[in-house]
């Protein structure tokens, strides 16, 4: 593994046209870590899937203006970890995120096939984080 462990992050407006920018940034970070082309393509798809889920959920809340999605990538315990977070004021957002992912059946089956781990969590300030992990190649 190369020594590129410093976190990299990008914040995008919660709009579909910005998803491509997020996947390019995270793909470049994965490339620095030594993932091969096939794995980088997988990571691009995974980032696209979770950003899409985040944006669709915010869209359902009806407040896309001035909303954003933050994507962070870092290495932890030899895993590439990608956090896709977005703020929400709704108490039930964690459940809604689960539902949103399940409704996008194809997206969920893609995610679980190409990433080692997919988690959904909520922070104390009501942000939802979709966390993806994939083992960094030696």
């Amino acid at each position: 593994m190369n020594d590129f462990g410093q976190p990299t992050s990008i914040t995008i407006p919660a709009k579909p046209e910005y998803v491509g920018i997020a996947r390019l940034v995270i793909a470049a970070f994965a490339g620095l870590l030594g993932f091969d082309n096939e794995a980088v393509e997988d990571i691009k798809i995974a980032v696209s899937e979770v950003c899409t889920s985040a944006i669709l959920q915010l869209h359902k809340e009806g407040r896309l203006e001035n909303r954003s999605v933050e994507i962070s990538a870092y290495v932890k315990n030899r895993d590439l970890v990608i956090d896709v977070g977005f703020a929400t004021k709704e108490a039930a957002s964690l459940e809604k995120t689960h539902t949103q992912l399940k409704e996008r059946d194809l997206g969920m089956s893609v995610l679980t096939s190409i990433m080692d781990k997919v988690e959904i969590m909520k922070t104390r300030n009501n942000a939802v984080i979709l966390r993806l992990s994939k083992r960094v190649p030696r």
Partner: protein
Amino acid sequence: MDLRIESKEVDGIGVIVLEGEVDVYTAPKLKSRLIDLVDEGKYNIIIDLQKVEFMDSSGLGVLVGGLKRVKSHQGSISLVVTQENILKIFRITGLVKVFPIFSSEEEAISDIKGS
């Protein structure tokens, strides 16, 4: 990061040629073009994905929706895919069993004509 869509007709078969990326932003353009073709009475459609560089489940969802639409008219959607990264997403989701996939437009056309 855009999607270019060209449509043509070959022996009565609607052919859509895609170039670029199919994601949550661009998939609605593809959906709209598919709906237009069906509205024009073209129920056997070939979608050429050879110049597609990226596709996620938003694109797959549009293809599945299009298939439902043409099947209601006893039609079909055939795909032309040659890139391994695009084929992979069809394999992962099991859609290789749903769509006939060919390595050239000519193969897809002759399959439709033969059926």
